[in-house]
Structure formats: C-alpha cells, structure tokens
C-alpha cells in the first residue's frame, strides 16, 4: 500500500467516525408512547411540532388500548426510555403514587391558565394531591345511544328514560324480531372501558354513587344504585335475554360493530364512537343512531379524560428535556397561536370530545359534530357528566378485581348483593393496606 493510500484509509476511517456525530444535530430527543388510535394523525402532529421546535426530535411508539396499562408498567419498571406519554384518569393516581409520572404545575405554572376553561370533571380528573399532571388529549362522556329505526319499528316514539323503560323497549324489539339481543355493552374483562360504562349507568340512577366523599364504598348498601344496575343487568342477560351474551367478551369496539351491523339497538359508548356509528362509509345503519340521555332518574353520566403526561425520567434527563416535554404537552393539549389546534383537529377529524367547554360553541366543531350527532344533546349530556369516584392509587387494582366480580353476578353465579359485598371488601382491604 502506498503512503497516499494509507492516508486515504486513515482519513476515510476518521470521516466515518466523525460523520454520525455531525449528523446528530444538537437538540433533544423525546420518547413518546401512546395507545394505538389515529396513529397517522399523531405522526402528522409530531411532524408539525418538530417544525415548530426544530431542536426536538420525537421517537414515537404505540401499544393497543387493551394492553396499554400493562405495557406501560413494564416500561416503567424496566426503565425503558419514555419521556412523554398518554395516560388516563383511571391510572393517574396509581402512576403518580408509584412515582412514574410527575406533576407539571410547579415547573410550568402556566398550565394553570388553562384550568378555568375545562369542565369541572376534567379539572378533578387531572389533579392528584392538589397538583396538575397533564394537559388533555381528549375528554369525553359515556352516552346512551339507540337505533331510532329499531325503536320506531317497535312502536315507541322516543328513547327510554329509565332502566324499566329500556327493558320494556328491548323486550318489544326482541318480540318483533328486530334484534335478538337489543342491548350490547363492551363489558369484556379485558377492556378498561368496562368499568366506565358500568359507572355511567350507576351515576344515571337516583342517588347514583359508588363512593362517598371520604372514599367509603356506598355501592354495597342495600338498595344502592349499583345494586339496581347489577340486578337489572343480570336479569337482562339471564331470564329476559335482551342483553347480548357477547357483551361479556366484547370490547367497546366489538359492541360498536354489533350496533353497526344492526344486531343490537342500544349501547353505552364514549360519545366520539357515535361518529363511527353514523359514518355512511362504515355501516348501512348510519344516520339511525341517536343520543338519548342516560336512562335513569338523574340522567347523569361519567366523564373521563385521557391526557398527556411527563414521566419521572424526563426531569432526570435534564432541564432541556423537561422544557421540550412541556412544549410537547402545551402544543398537543394546550393552545398554539391562541387556538387549541391539536385538540380541535381530533374533534374535527375523529369526533373526539374535549375538555374545553367553550369549544362546544366553535362553529367548525358544531358543523363537524352535527354530521353525526345532535350537538345540543351531546352538550346537555356532557353538562351532566361527573368524574369517576374513588380515584386512588388502588382504584386500578379494584377495577380489575371488580370486572370479574360483576361478571359473576351477570352470569347468575352469585347474587348482586354478594358481588357488591366482595367488591366492597376488596376496596376496604386495599384502602387499609394503602394507609
């Protein structure tokens, strides 16, 4: 090898070593994890965020909704790099108590400016021990939907207003052969939505509460709203055969498919799912689904929130990462140029609900929502929404335990009162351990 050739080899080696370092422009890499929904929109939003903040690169990965909690626990425990993520009011207390996510209002007090614009249930659901843990991805309510065509053909002028009326209408629909099982709910043991739709039914009843303000389980009291709901559901599934047995294996998506197919007439769904039900590109039943206020004396429902949070790994990585993480939360869940740009995009393109009550007056949103829902009715139900009760670090554990217990009552394996007693016992046990 000649002298020059040797130098060329050395030079090329040096360049190959230096090149990657040059390619990595100084800046911050944020690791974002979400559940798999509207992934193409998420990616596009990320691209726009990166344009606005050129020094920040977002590494994005997603997991299915049904397995999201468990996947995130595995990531937290194994310390897999994760800086910003989706979370839910189900898990806020659990993840905060475990030290996996951090409050943001101390480092970024500007988040508080948004609070006054949120529905009361959203403010409550974003708070743990007085601290704010994120900005809203979306906020929504569980709504009662009915197939107006089925109801009309069964001889009824409007939707049911109570559980008794719901039974009566479902029996009539079944008797006329319109649907074998007029009711379908996403009550599969694997779906985190299941406890929310159950809670919505409880809230809709007279004195509908699961826990009092001190966190005591009132659902176990004889004659409670929960007992009424569980007894009603067990009868609907058992002797009356009006609740589809597939409900016990169904996720929210499965229940929607049954409604889309016209196999069922009534459902309990997050309100954004109504956009899918009334999408003519997806079902011949489109346009027939309407919102009825929740069947029960109070007509109340559960409001829930999914939000963007910052993990405890981010502050450990330094101030730049924390600033980038806040910018991410602010861009995705807050205002950009005076507008809730990303929130509004989700609403317009996917029908997702929002935390900011003022958006109900937004003309673009009203026009978009008006294609698949009665917006005034949607707003009316949203105004009757309450945050889930019993939000504690052990709520998630209680939820998983309760899903199986509720199944036992629905299947007639045990009395509703015994199911509720077992759920209360578990609650007390968890509460005692947490002290």
């Amino acid at each position, binding site marked *: 090898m000649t002298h020059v050739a040797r130098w060329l080899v050395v030079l090329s080696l040096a360049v190959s070593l230096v090149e990657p370092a040059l390619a990595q422009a100084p800046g911050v890499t944020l690791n974002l994890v979400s559940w798999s929904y509207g992934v193409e929109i998420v990616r596009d939003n990320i691209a726009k965020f990166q344009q606005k903040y050129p020094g920040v690169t977002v590494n994005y990965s997603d997991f299915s909704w*049904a397995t999201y*909690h*468990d996947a995130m*626990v*595995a990531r*937290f*425990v194994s310390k897999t790099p994760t800086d910003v993520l989706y979370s839910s009011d189900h898990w806020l207390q*659990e993840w905060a*108590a*475990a*030290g996996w996510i951090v409050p943001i209002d101390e480092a970024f007090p500007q988040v508080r400016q948004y609070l006054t614009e949120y529905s009361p249930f959203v403010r409550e659901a974003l708070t743990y021990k007085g601290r704010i843990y994120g900005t809203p991805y979306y906020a929504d309510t569980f709504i009662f939907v009915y197939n107006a065509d089925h109801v009309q053909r069964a001889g009824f002028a409007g939707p049911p207003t109570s559980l008794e009326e719901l039974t009566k209408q479902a029996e009539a629909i079944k008797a006329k052969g319109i649907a*074998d099982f007029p009711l379908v709910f996403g009550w*599969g*043991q*694997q*779906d985190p939505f299941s406890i929310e739709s159950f809670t919505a039914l409880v809230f809709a009843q007279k004195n509908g509460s699961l826990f009092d303000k001190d966190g005591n389980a009132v659902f176990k009291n004889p004659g409670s709203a929960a007992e009424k709901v569980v007894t009603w559901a067990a009868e609907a599934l058992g002797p009356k055969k009006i609740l*589809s*047995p*597939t*409900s*016990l*294996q*169904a996720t929210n998506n*499965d229940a929607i*498919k*049954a409604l889309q*197919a016209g*196999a069922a007439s009534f459902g309990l769904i997050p309100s954004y799912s109504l956009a899918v039900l009334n999408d003519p590109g997806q079902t011949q039943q489109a346009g027939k689904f309407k919102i009825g206020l929740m069947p029960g004396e109070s007509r109340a429902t559960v409001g829930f929130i999914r939000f963007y949070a910052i993990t405890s790994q981010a502050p450990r990585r330094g101030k730049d990462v924390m600033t980038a993480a806040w910018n991410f939360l602010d861009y995705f869940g807050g205002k950009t140029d005076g507008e809730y740009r990303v929130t509004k995009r989700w609403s317009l393109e996917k029908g997702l609900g929002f935390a900011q009550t003022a958006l109900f007056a937004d003309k673009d949103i009203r026009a978009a929502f008006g294609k698949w829902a009665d917006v005034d009715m949607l707003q009316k139900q949203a105004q009757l929404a309450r945050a889930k009760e019993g939000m504690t*670090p*052990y709520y*998630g*554990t209680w939820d*998983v335990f309760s*899903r*199986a217990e509720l*199944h*036992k009552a*629905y*299947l007639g*394996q045990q009395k509703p009162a015994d199911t509720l007693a077992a759920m209360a016992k578990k609650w007390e046990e968890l509460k005692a*351990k*947490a002290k």
Partner: protein
Amino acid sequence: MTRPSLYPYATILPVMLVVAVFTVYPLLHSVYLSVHENVLTRPLDNDFVGLQNFREVVGGYYFWRSLWSTAVFAVMAVAAVTLYGLGVALLLNQPGVLGSTLLKVVVLLPWAIPSVISGIIWRWIFDGDYGVLNGLLLATGVVERYVPWMSQPFTARLCMVIAHVWKQGPLAAVFLLAALQIIPAELYDAVRMDGAGRWNAFRFVTVPYLKATLALVLIYETIVAVATFDLVYVMTGGGPADATAIIGWYAYTEIFRFLNLGRGAALAIILGLLLLGLVMIYLRLLRSEEAA
C-alpha cells in the same frame, strides 16, 4: 497459555456466566422480592416480610380459584393433546396414506406459528358476533343463531383447549410418530399370525412400545398446560368471571395489574415448585422405564 488444571473451568465459564445472569440471578432476585413488601404504588415500603406474601397468596381468593381453573384446563388440554397426537401419529404411520409427506408438514404447521398469533386466529374464529365458526354452523343449520362461545365459562374453557390442542398437538404427534416408526414390523406380523386383530395389535404391541414416549408427552404437555399464559392473554383476558384465569394469568395480573411484585414473585415461585414437582415425576417415570 491456560494451565491444564484451569482448562475445564475456562471452557465452561461462558456457559456458567450465561446461566448465572439469565437463570440464577433472576431466581435469587425473585426469592428476594417474594420475602419483601413490594407494591409499586408504595415504592418506599420495602420491608422484609418473611413468608407473608406466600401466606397472602395461598390464603387469597384467587389462588385456589386459579388452581382449580388450571387443573380443569390441564386435564382437558393434556387429554385432548395426547389423543390428538396419537390419532395423527397412527394415521401418518400407515404405509398407504395418500400424500403422507405433505400431511406431515401440514400437521406440523400450527406448531411453528407463535402462540399469540394462533390465539388471535382462534379468538376471531370463536367470536360471538362475526366468528367463522358461527358462520359455518349457521350456514349448515347446526345452530339457529350465533353462539357467544367465549361468554360462558365452560365454552370459554373449551375454546381455549381447542386453541391449545391446535398449537401443541403437532409436537405430540411428532414424538409419537417417531416412536411408532421404530416398532419392529415383525412384531405386528407375529401377533397377526397368532390371530390378533388390529385392536389387540395396538394393545399388545403398539402401546407397550409407546409407553415411555406417552409418559414424556403427558408430563411435558402437563407442564406446558400449567404454564400457559399467552392464550389467556390474547383470547379471554381471564374472563368471563375469571373462568379462564389460570395460575400463569394470575401471576401476571398480580404483577402488572395489581402491581404487587412481592406477591407476584411468591406466586411465580409456587408455580415454579409445582412445575419442578412435575419434572421430577417425569424423570422418575423415565428412569423406571429405562430400568424395566
């Protein structure tokens, strides 16, 4: 240069290191976790609690219920896998079976498919709203309406067993086919000359020769059935009403959903001991076969 006395140690050192890192350390760490308070939502409470986690696991509602579910699943699954494997092996061992080479490949195919994928396939097949099984049964007039197979405790268990057999059966068939193929043909000729029919040939020649392999299949499949987790995860999520929440699922739930690492580790150790017991029985059976 390595001294001769150190040579054996040097050669097994890499393997020992791998075993130490991936087996011994996790095992010891599990033991450590199992005797300490370790609830993820209370990260600062890590007191030594002795056998309390074991007591809580064994005394809790889930343990006995999941043990019962595991026993029911294991009995159904092992019996079905063994019978399926034996039937397929006997069929493929027939000399005149048309396309037996292709059949062997086809039969083995499910074994090569990852459990999670096969679980998803079977969940779709059994779906109560759009499952292909319901479609077929309805088209052929066997059922009047779609059946929610996975919404009733018994049928949900049955669905899992069928999915398990589809996945595990091929391996049993391969084991048994290999054993069948080494049985001397003269023995069958001899019993035929003695006037024995097919049943007696099976009973007095095939079965004695298959005994050791059958024992291996039974024990191995019991271990696999007891340790099953992926099918539950994908197909049922433990439901309905915890009917399919077998012990492997319970350990997962304890750790990832109840966030109690201490109790999860205690449960994993109990499950490990249970499997160890089964392995010991298997080894004893094999030894007695060899001695015989």
